[in-house]
């Protein structure tokens, strides 16, 4: 089995990085595959590392600092207000649940009142405007579309 490392390797790499290789190191390299491979790779990567741009060509530290602080503040604000947001969502969910339960309990009474109200409203409208049943449905549908459109527009504008 081939060895994975050689105990001469750190010394040889260190020498090659700082000064030229000694005669002894060269002799060792001629017979040691591990050190030869390590040196070959080391020199390639070191040469490549020498081409890393200088600090002034990297992102400005002042800008990185400022943006980091902004992000940190935002994150902290989110953490602080998280219980409030959770409470708001919980209240909304409980409200919706309460509404559904209330509506289902009072539906017989509400349904009858609603039917009366719709019938009266439709009668009054048909007397005031000479429209047929289909025109009424068309007008209601149009209004509904307008409302949905307005809702979508408000959401888009907010975003």
């Amino acid at each position, binding site marked *: 089995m081939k060895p994975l490392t050689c105990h001469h390797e750190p010394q040889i790499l260190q020498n090659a990085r700082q000064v030229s290789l000694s005669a002894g190191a060269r002799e060792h390299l001629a017979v040691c595959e591990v050190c030869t*491979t390590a040196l070959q790779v080391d020199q390639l990567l070191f040469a490549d590392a020498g081409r890393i741009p200088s600090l002034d060509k990297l992102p400005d530290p002042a800008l990185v600092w400022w943006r*980091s602080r902004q992000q940190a503040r935002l994150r902290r604000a989110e953490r602080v207000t998280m219980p409030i947001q959770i409470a708001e969502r919980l209240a909304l969910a409980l409200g919706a649940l309460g509404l559904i339960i209330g509506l289902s309990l009072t539906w017989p009474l509400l349904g009858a009142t609603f039917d009366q109200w719709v019938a009266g409203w439709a009668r009054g409208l048909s007397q005031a405007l000479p429209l047929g049943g289909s025109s009424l449905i068309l007008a209601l549908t149009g209004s509904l579309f307008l409302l949905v459109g307005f809702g979508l527009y408000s959401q888009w504008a907010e975003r």
Partner: protein
Amino acid sequence: MAVPGSPGIAAVEAQERTAMDEAAFRELYTRTARPLWGYLARSTGSDTLADDLLQETYFRMVRAGFQPEGEEHARNYLFKVATNLVRDHYRSPKKDTLPLEHSPAVEGPGHRVRLRRDVQRLLEKLKPRERELLWLGHVEQFSHQEIAEILGLKPGSIRLLLFRARRKLAGLLTEADLGPEIMK
């Protein structure tokens, strides 16, 4: 009154007071940004992406309120965060790596640019983890223990992984007939 489960204003203010100030940040950035950028650029193969990930690494450090307990601690922490960001980038479906030819940081005499491209092409043939291992081991000269911590690997496996990655890169160098040429 503090809301249960929230850090509370006093805790946030305390964290603000103990967090790193701008002078300390600048000092740390000056010491660590170049090696970190080099690691990111060679790991991702894109200088532009390296710029973005470099900034994100420091954003995360400041956001976390990191307090370095010495040079090594800071270096290990930053390289670990950078490694996680590179992993996240490879995992995300939207990857925006630029080919090296369009990269703004590649400047200089023609042969240096060609050499840089040759090196980049060779590194691209390695797996991301192999590139990370080689860069951390050879250029940054981290110990096997530190490499294991940064890459989230077992310390005992580093020796073998590093050996394999080296052998693969050396093989690619020989194949591309770049061995002696590239070292001039």
